[in-house]
């Protein structure tokens, strides 16, 4: 049994579309300890959502897991029956999406929707369920919770709906909360409220969080560990400090240099990553970032780079690191 809450190993997952095979996940491994907050960043289409959903046993059509294992809380998700999966989703893992409107049912009141989840997973007593619903709305900072219970989703603002989604996600006291771009659709002042709420809840409840976002500011303020994805692969993983202050992969470095910084006092020209994102139907052979990489070498175009450990909590897949590793071994024991 795994010591980790989340233990994904060598996951390959493809979508078999009419246009061809989309290799959405290409040998993805993630380990996460209980209580940790992991951020997954990367470009649109890099596989962030697919990774998180596979952890819940959700693989949308026409997708298939090709190989690899997914363990959650000591159980093998990849071997669970549909019934076991449903139980896990209701009790141990919850998810919130970018757009709360699409995941709330417009024809039921907020109260109905929260209580339904509670009745399904924790208690069978209606009165207790109502009490718990009020408690949850209080917890996520919604004022006048009695009134809100009787309202419909469209009567609430975007920030309020996202709070309701979080309340529903917390109803079963999950061990893991997956937040897929939870604040992307919200204004920054509302985003700040939601991020603060998530931080508070985490301290109070002690749950783990996977935070999916393309906003490097959000991961910097929320996450202890960060996985950087590019074209279906985790190209770098490390603590937030390591990723921001000691980035090793050329894509991570490029990403950090291409964002304008609010606290910069001088106007510095941005250094963009040239080229266009990978066409997932025709991914390059070798390192997926090679066509856009300024330091690209011959081997990068031919072969996928292996992971190099930078330190105990930091690794990256880039041939430049292998070269350095090789050179530092020169005269020593080359394997």
């Amino acid at each position: 049994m795994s010591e980790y809450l989340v233990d994904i190993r060598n996951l390959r997952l493809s979508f078999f579309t009419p246009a061809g095979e989309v290799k959405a996940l290409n040998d993805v491994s993630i380990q996460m300890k209980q209580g940790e907050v992991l951020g997954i960043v990367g470009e649109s289409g890099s596989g962030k959502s697919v990774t998180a959903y596979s952890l819940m046993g959700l693989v949308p059509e026409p997708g298939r897991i090709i190989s690899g294992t997914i363990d959650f809380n000591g159980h093998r998700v990849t071997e669970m029956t549909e019934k076991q999966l449903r139980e896990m989703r209701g009790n141990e893992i919850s998810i919130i999406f970018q757009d709360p409107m699409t995941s709330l049912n417009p024809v039921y009141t907020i109260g109905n929707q929260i209580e339904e989840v509670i009745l399904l997973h924790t208690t069978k007593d209606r009165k207790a369920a109502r009490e718990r619903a009020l408690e949850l709305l209080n917890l996520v900072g919604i004022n006048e919770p009695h009134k809100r219970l009787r309202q419909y989703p469209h009567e609430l603002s975007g920030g309020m709906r996202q709070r309701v989604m979080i309340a529903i996600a917390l109803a079963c006291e999950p061990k893991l909360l997956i937040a897929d771009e939870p604040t992307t659709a919200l204004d920054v002042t509302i985003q700040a409220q939601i991020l603060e709420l998530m931080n508070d809840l985490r301290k109070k409840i002690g749950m783990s969080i996977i935070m999916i976002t393309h906003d490097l500011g959000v991961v910097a303020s929320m996450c202890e560990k960060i996985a950087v994805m590019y074209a279906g692969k985790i190209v770098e993983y490390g603590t937030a400090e390591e990723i921001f202050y000691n980035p090793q992969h050329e894509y991570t470095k490029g990403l950090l240099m291409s964002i304008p910084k609010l606290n910069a006092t001088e106007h510095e020209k941005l250094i963009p990553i040239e080229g266009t994102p990978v066409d997932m139907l025709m991914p390059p052979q070798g390192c997926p970032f090679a066509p856009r990489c300024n330091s690209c070498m011959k081997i990068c175009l031919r072969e996928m780079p292996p992971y190099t450990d930078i330190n105990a909590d930091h690794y990256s897949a880039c041939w430049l690191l292998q070269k350095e590793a090789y050179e530092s071994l020169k005269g020593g024991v080359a394997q």
Partner: protein
Amino acid sequence: MSKLVEVKNLKQYFPAPGNSLFSKRYLKAVDDVSFYINKGETLGLVGESGCGKTTTGKTVIRLYEPTAGKIIYNGEDITKVNMLPYRRKMQIVFQDPYASLDPRMTVADIVGEAIDIHKLAKSKKERKERIISILERVGLNSEHANRYPHEFSGGQRQRIGIARSLAVNPEFVVCDEPVSALDVSIQAQIINMFEELQEEMGLTYLFIAHDLSVVKHISNRIGVMYLGKLVELASSYELTFHSLHPYTQSLISAIPIPDPQVSRTRQRIVLEGDVPSPLDPPSGCRFRTRCRYATKICAEQEPEFKEVDNGHFVACHHVTK
């Protein structure tokens, strides 16, 4: 420096939904806004969703007829004139490059259409040369000319949209969230391109975005809007480092900084509640329902938008300098 664009007391009211003949209510999307933009300058406009940024941008170039106020372009009052001679000079680039490009037209047709409308090419040959030259300017090439929008990535589509706007040699471009839909790694390409094109062609921009980091990077000065009002306007530096309006201060403090040590130790001013409905804005100062400093006068009187320091404008009763 001379002013290229100036608006004075600009108002844009939309009839509120559900109006009857007897009760006419208005949604005051832009309410008494004044600013100017110098030639060759970039003025940024920020604020939360629905505060009136797009409406301001569209009204300035008269895609909407202003309810009240004045628009002055190059010294001439254009509030009521026939816009035909000005259309070419004043262009707009939209957020969603896909929605604004006709899927049945090739890139050459899309760019060429604007050239035709303004009769900017005397011959087929000149037209074609012009198309290719503008495509190259935005980082595309002649091979792209005969392809359709769906064959391009998001960043490339935004380049096509920009090529279409620039093909007619404009002087003033309203950029409405032109990078918001793009991946971070592509945003920088397009931002740099806007900067380079501005230098080459001497363009003047009104640059609208909700991402203050992007706006600060590209703008000389920045205006902050809240519920249809301009609440603060200053140089980019002053606005980011010495903002005076309580709303601007909380907006800036709410932006997550991509630096773990900075963002974890930073003091945040978390605003309570949501933006009130624009149909029923608070009396007096529109920000007062969420403001930490609000007092009686804030509910009673609308604060005047006044210059408190050289070029630094603020609308707040409790800012005096």
